[in-house]
């Protein structure tokens, strides 16, 4: 009886969207922080090329985080 009352499709979509958004944003933001931290270390260690690569990856991840947040808000709140 309860199974017929539950809006299974909506509930599953909610769970999936939460997993993707929550885990995804935390992961890509962690990559951004990794990039920033590596950039500082590698730069200090005199490896500017590797530092640049780490900074670029971190920067891209930061942009991706911002984009994910903005798109997430727009999608979640549009109906």
């Amino acid at each position: 009886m309860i199974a017929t009352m539950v809006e299974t499709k909506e509930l599953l979509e909610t769970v999936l969207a939460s997993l993707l958004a929550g885990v995804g944003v935390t992961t890509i933001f962690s990559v951004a922080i990794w990039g920033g931290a590596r950039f500082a270390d590698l730069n200090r260690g005199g490896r500017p090329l590797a530092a640049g690569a780490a900074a670029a990856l971190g920067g891209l991840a930061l942009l991706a985080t911002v984009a994910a947040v903005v798109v997430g808000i727009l999608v979640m709140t549009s109906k």
Partner: protein
Amino acid sequence: MNSDIILVIVVGTALAFDFTNGFHDTANVVATSISTGAARPRVAIGIASLLNFVGAFISISVAATVANDVVDASVITPTIVFAGLIGAIAWNLITWWFGLPSSSSHALIGGVVGSAVAAAGLDAVFAEGLVGKVLVPAVVAPIVAFTVAGIGIGLAYRIVGRQRPGPVTRGFRYGQIVSGGLLALAHGTNDAQKTMGVITLALIANGTLAADADPPTWVIVSAATAIALGTYFGGWRIIRTTGSRIIKMDAAQGFSAQGAGAAVILSSTHFGFPLSTTHVINGGVMGAGAAKRVSAVRWGVAGNIVFAWLLTLPAAAAIGAAVYGLTRIFGTGALGPVLVTLMALALVAAAFARRSQQTAPVPAGSG
């Protein structure tokens, strides 16, 4: 004339509830940022208030659920809505008194369901809406938040684990300003809508609005303002419970918990599920703690919170039903709601006076 007086009282009570909702839930929104040092309390609360206000404007799906899918609007009267609101406010204040982060949303829905059943019997409640849109999401959402925060922090530790802790902590603290803001926005989106839904339900019951009407603009603006003000003046007592008594968090855990909470609340809002933001953020906090070390979570405190969660719907329903009975002693006019409002105000004033006496600073030299 009588029904208009009752409607005014209902709108005032609903906005008072919205204020207590913000007041009660401030902790959920800002505690993690404060406890990890990501933001100073005043700043965190100021931002949270502003974003709660903004969040109230970005969706009306949850308001529609509360107004149309939980109780049968055709048998609801403004007095029933009033009694439900008093039940919810009373339960919010009781849990505030004991420092328990229970759910304002479930208190509201419980209160309205209780008073509706007392007034019109079980047929007044849409079992499908109550189970499918409230009870099942109530169970699922904190588990999802727990899981999302747990997986998120696990991956985050794998990615940044070998880096120097200084830059990593600083980075996640900056991130927490955004994740905390998102959580406040999500809170405003989901919670302010419940008040909008209840006021809309009262307006429909009074014949002021058509049965399938959306909340009018003045309802949205006033609900947004009330929850923002409530958040600004929010409860420090509960901040301590959520922020440090469940687990001692680092900035990465705070980011993961807030991100999980915001993701779950915003996705649920999209489908019109009136979630408990309290349950969700506490689920996220516990998930972020347990992923690092299961024993890091103070399960005794977590157990008290779960106990309050389980009690909220039936307790608020019982108070809502009792308030409806009390109101009807004075007939069907405005006298009952007026007297109950005065009694409620007197009780609230007494509770605040007693609380401020208990927390008053000890004068210098008194020992």
